[in-house]
C-alpha cells in the first residue's frame, strides 16, 4: 500500500487540476488532523498508562495542581496547532477557488479502496464549492473550539485523550465532506459517529454518560442503515457510487418521482435524520450533552449534526427528482423544528435547552433543503455553526464557572441547572454579551446572522406553497417555531444571566469570568454571528432597509457560489413543480416578511424577557416539579419512555426469549434430546440382555423363525 499511497501523494503535489483551480495540498488538510490524532493518541496512551500505574499503586493523580507533564502540555500545541494549519490550508484553497469559475469538482484519487467486479470505489477526495465551504466551517470553528478546549479541559486527567478524539473527529468530518463518493462519505459518516460516541462517553466513569454515548452510536446506526441501503440501491441502478457519475447520470437514468429515486431519497433521509437528529431519531442528541461542552459545540451543534443537511444538499439532484422524498425531508424538518422547540421551552438544564434548540434549528435546515433551497440550507448551516457554537461555548464558560464555584464549597448542586444560576452577567460580562449576540442571532433579529439565513428558509418554504398545500402548513409551523425559538432562548438568557444570583452567597464569590483562551474564541464567534449572515442577503432585501439600501458588501453570494452544485436540481424542480412564488402564502413580499419576522422576534424577546424576569425562580432543590402541560414538555413528550416501551424493551425481551427459549430450549433441547434419546434407547435395548440363557435362546429362535419365514414364504 505504501508505495501507491506515496505515489498518489506525489501526484497530489504535481498534478494540475482542470478548470483553472489548482488545489494546494488538499490531502494534507485531511492528514493534519490525523497526524494530530496520532501524536495526541500516543500521548494519551502514555498518560493513561501512567495514571493506570498510579491507580494500581493506590494513588490518584492530581492534574489541577502538580506541574503538568509533557503529555498534558504537548496536546495544547498539537491539537489546536494542526487545526490552525488545516484551517489556513483550507483558506488558501478557498481563496484559490474564489477566483475561478469551477464547473466541475476537482477530484484527487489516492488509491483504489474496494474494487471487485463492476464495483470500484476509490479513496478519492472531491473539492468543490460545497465541500470547501464545509471545510472552512469545520476547520475554522473547529480551530476556535480547540482553542477554547485548552482552557476548558485543562484540568482533566484525560486531556491528551480528549484532543486525540477531537482531532480524529475533525479528520473524519473532513473525510465526510471531502469524499468523492458515497462510501468515502460513509467512512466519515460513521467515523464522526464513532468520535461522537467516544466523546460523549468521554467521562466514561459515569454510567449515564457512557450510556449516552452508546445510545448515540446505536441510534446513529439506524440512520447508517438507511444510508447503506441507499448506497445499495444506487449501485444497483448506476453501477457506481461516485458522486459525479451518479449525479451526472441521474436526470437521464431515473424517472422523475419514480419508486427507485423515491426509495433512495427516503433511505438517505433516514440516514440524514439519524446523523442530524431529526424526528424520529433525534433522541440521542439531548443525551449527547453528557460530553464535554466544547464537544457539544463542535460535534453536536456546528459540524457533525449538520452532516445530514450536507448529505441532502450533496444529493440535491436525487431529491429534486423525488418530490415525495423532498417533501418528506421538509416535513420531517418542520415537525422536528416545532417539536424540539416545544421541549426546549421547559428545560432547566442549560445544555439541554441548547440541545433541543440545535435539533430545532437542524429542522429548519432540513426544511430548507427539503423545499429545494439548498443554498439556504447550507447558509443556515453555516450561520448556525457560528452562533450555536458560540452559545455552547458560552454555556461551557458558564458551567465551567459554576462548577468551580460549587466545587469550591463542595455543594452538590447541578452546575448546569439554570435555576441555580441567575445574575451571572455581573460575574462574567464577556460571556454574557457574546451569548446575547448569539441569542439574537438565533432568534432571527436583524442584522444578526440568523435573521438572514433563517428567514430565507422560511421564505422558501412559504413560496413553495403553489406546489402543494403542505408547504403552507410547514410555513406556519416554521414561523411558530421561530417565535418559540426567540422565547426559549430569551428564557435561557434571563434565567442564566439576569435577576438575582441563586448560586448561594459563599459560592458566588468563586464565580468568575473564563480565561482569555476561552473568551477570545467567544469573541470571534460573536463577530461571525453578527456578520456571517451578510454573505447571502437576497438581492431584494439588500436593496431594502435591511440591507442598508445596498450597503452590504455582497448579495446572494452563497447562492451563486453553490450554483454549480444546485443548478441541476433547481432546474429539475422548476421544470416539474414550477418556480417559487414571489409572495408568501398569505401575500406579502420578501422585504415585508423580513420586517414582520424580525419585528415579531424582537417582540417575543422583549416580552419574554419581561415575563421570565418577573417570575420567581428558586434553586432547583427548592423548585416544585412542573405540572400539567409543562410537565409533559419538561419530560420531553415522553418520547424516550415510548421508545423504551415499544422498541428497546421488546427487543431486549425478544433477545432474551430467543436465547432462553429458541436457543436453549428448542434448538439445544432438540440436539440434546436426540443424544439423550439415543442413550435412552441404548439403555432400553440393553434391558433385553437379561443374562438369562433361555431368553437368549428364545430371541435367537425367534430370529431364526423370522429368517426362515422370510426366505421360505
Amino acid at each position, binding site marked *: 500500500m505504501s508505495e501507491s499511497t506515496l505515489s498518489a501523494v506525489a501526484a497530489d503535489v504535481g498534478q494540475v487540476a482542470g478548470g483553472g483551480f489548482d488545489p494546494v495540498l488538499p490531502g494534507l488538510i485531511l492528514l493534519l488532523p490525523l497526524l494530530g490524532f496520532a501524536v495526541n493518541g500516543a500521548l494519551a496512551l502514555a498518560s493513561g498508562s501512567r495514571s493506570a500505574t498510579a491507580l494500581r499503586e493506590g494513588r490518584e493523580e492530581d492534574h489541577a495542581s502538580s506541574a503538568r507533564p509533557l503529555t498534558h502540555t504537548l496536546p495544547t500545541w498539537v491539537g489546536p496547532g494542526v487545526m490552525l494549519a488545516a484551517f489556513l490550508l483550507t483558506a488558501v484553497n478557498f481563496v484559490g477557488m474564489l477566483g475561478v469559475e469551477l464547473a466541475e469538482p476537482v477530484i484527487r484519487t489516492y488509491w483504489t479502496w474496494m474494487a471487485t467486479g463492476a464495483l470500484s470505489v476509490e479513496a478519492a477526495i472531491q473539492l468543490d464549492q460545497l465541500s470547501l465551504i464545509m471545510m472552512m466551517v469545520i476547520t475554522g470553528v473547529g480551530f476556535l473550539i480547540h482553542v477554547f478546549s485548552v482552557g476548558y479541559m485543562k484540568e482533566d486527567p484525560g486531556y491528551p485523550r480528549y484532543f486525540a478524539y477531537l482531532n480524529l473527529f475533525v479528520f473524519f468530518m473532513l473525510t465526510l465532506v471531502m469524499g468523492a463518493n458515497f462510501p468515502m462519505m460513509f467512512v466519515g459518516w460513521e467515523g464522526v459517529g464513532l468520535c461522537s460516541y467516544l466523546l460523549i462517553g468521554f467521562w466514561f466513569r459515569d454510567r449515564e454518560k457512557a450510556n449516552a454515548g452508546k445510545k448515540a452510536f446505536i441510534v446513529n446506526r439506524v440512520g447508517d442503515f438507511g444510508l447503506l441501503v441507499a448506497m445499495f440501491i444506487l449501485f444497483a441502478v448506476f453501477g457506481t457510487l461516485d458522486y459525479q457519475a451518479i449525479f451526472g447520470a441521474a436526470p437521464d437514468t431515473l424517472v422523475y418521482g419514480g419508486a427507485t429515486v423515491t426509495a433512495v431519497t427516503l433511505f438517505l433521509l433516514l440516514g440524514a435524520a439519524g446523523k442530524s437528529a431529526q424526528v424520529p431519531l433525534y433522541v440521542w442528541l439531548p443525551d449527547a450533552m453528557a460530553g464535554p461542552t466544547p464537544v457539544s459545540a463542535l460535534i453536536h451543534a456546528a459540524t457533525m449534526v449538520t452532516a445530514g443537511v450536507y448529505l441532502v444538499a450533496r444529493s440535491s439532484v436525487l431529491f429534486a427528482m423525488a418530490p415525495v422524498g423532498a417533501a418528506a425531508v421538509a416535513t420531517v424538518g418542520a415537525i422536528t423544528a416545532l417539536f424540539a422547540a416545544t421541549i426546549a421551552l421547559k428545560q432547566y438544564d442549560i445544555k439541554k435547552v441548547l440541545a433541543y434548540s440545535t435539533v430545532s434549528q437542524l429542522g429548519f435546515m432540513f426544511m430548507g433543503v427539503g423545499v429545494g433551497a439548498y443554498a439556504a440550507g447550507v447558509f443556515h448551516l453555516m450561520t448556525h455553526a457560528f452562533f450555536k457554537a458560540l452559545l455552547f461555548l458560552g454555556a461551557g464558560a458558564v458551567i465551567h464557572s459554576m462548577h468551580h464555584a460549587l466545587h469550591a464549597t463542595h455543594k452538590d448542586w447541578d452546575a448546569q441547572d439554570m435555576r441555580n444560576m441567575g445574575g451571572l452577567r455581573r460575574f462574567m460580562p464577556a460571556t454574557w454579551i457574546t451569548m446575547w449576540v448569539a441569542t439574537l442571532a438565533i432568534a432571527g433579529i436583524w442584522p444578526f446572522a440568523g435573521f438572514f439565513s433563517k428567514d430565507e428558509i422560511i421564505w422558501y418554504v412559504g413560496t413553495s406553497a403553489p406546489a402543494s398545500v403542505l408547504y403552507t402548513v410547514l410555513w406556519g409551523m416554521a414561523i411558530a417555531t421561530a417565535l418559540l425559538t426567540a422565547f426559549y432562548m430569551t428564557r435561557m438568557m434571563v434565567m442564566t444571566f439576569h435577576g438575582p444570583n441563586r448560586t448561594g452567597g459563599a459560592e458566588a464569590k468563586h464565580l468568575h469570568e473564563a480565561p482569555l483562551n476561552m473568551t477570545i474564541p467567544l469573541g470571534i464567534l460573536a463577530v461571525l454571528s453578527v456578520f456571517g449572515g451578510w454573505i447571502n442577503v437576497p438581492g431584494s432585501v439588500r436593496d431594502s432597509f435591511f440591507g442598508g439600501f445596498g450597503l452590504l458588501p455582497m448579495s446572494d453570494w452563497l447562492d451563486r457560489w453553490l450554483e454549480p452544485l444546485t443548478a441541476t436540481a433547481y432546474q429539475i424542480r422548476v421544470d416539474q413543480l414550477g418556480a417559487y412564488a414571489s409572495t408568501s402564502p398569505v401575500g406579502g413580499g420578501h422585504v415585508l416578511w423580513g420586517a414582520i419576522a424580525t419585528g415579531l422576534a424582537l417582540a417575543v424577546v422583549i416580552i419574554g424577557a419581561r415575563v421570565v424576569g418577573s417570575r420567581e425562580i428558586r434553586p432547583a432543590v427548592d423548585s416544585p416539579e412542573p405540572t400539567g402541560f409543562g410537565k409533559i414538555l419538561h419530560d420531553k413528550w415522553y418520547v424516550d419512555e415510548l421508545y423504551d416501551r415499544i422498541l428497546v424493551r421488546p427487543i431486549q425481551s425478544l433477545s432474551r426469549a430467543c436465547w432462553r427459549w429458541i436457543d436453549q430450549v428448542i434448538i439445544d433441547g432438540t440436539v440434546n434430546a436426540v443424544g439423550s434419546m439415543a442413550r435412552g434407547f441404548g439403555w432400553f435395548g440393553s434391558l433385553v440382555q437379561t*443374562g438369562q440363557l*433361555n431368553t437368549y435362546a428364545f430371541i435367537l429362535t425367534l430370529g431364526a423363525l423370522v429368517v426362515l419365514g422370510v426366505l421360505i414364504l
Partner: protein
Amino acid sequence: MLVEALVLSAILFVIGTLGVLVRRNAIIMFLCIELQLNAVNLSFVAFSRYLGIEGQIYVFFVMTVAAAEAAVGLAIIISIFRHYESVNVENFNLLKW
C-alpha cells in the same frame, strides 16, 4: 418315505429347540442340543438313501463332533458348578445388560 423321515427329523429338531428354550437345567439343555444334532443325523441318513452313502459318513462326523462338544461342555458345566453349586441357568446372570 423320505418325507416322513424328514418330518420326523424336523419334529425332533423342534422338540430339541423347545427343550433348550424351556428347560433351566444346563445338562438337560445340552441334551436337547444333542437331540437336535441327532435329528439332523436322521435327515442325513434319510437323504443318504437317495443321494448315496456319504450321508451316513457325515453322521459319523457329526457324532464325533457331538462327542467332543460333550466333553468340553460337561467340563464347563462342572467348572461353573464349582462356582455356583448349581446347574440351573437361571442363577447364572452375573453377566447381563
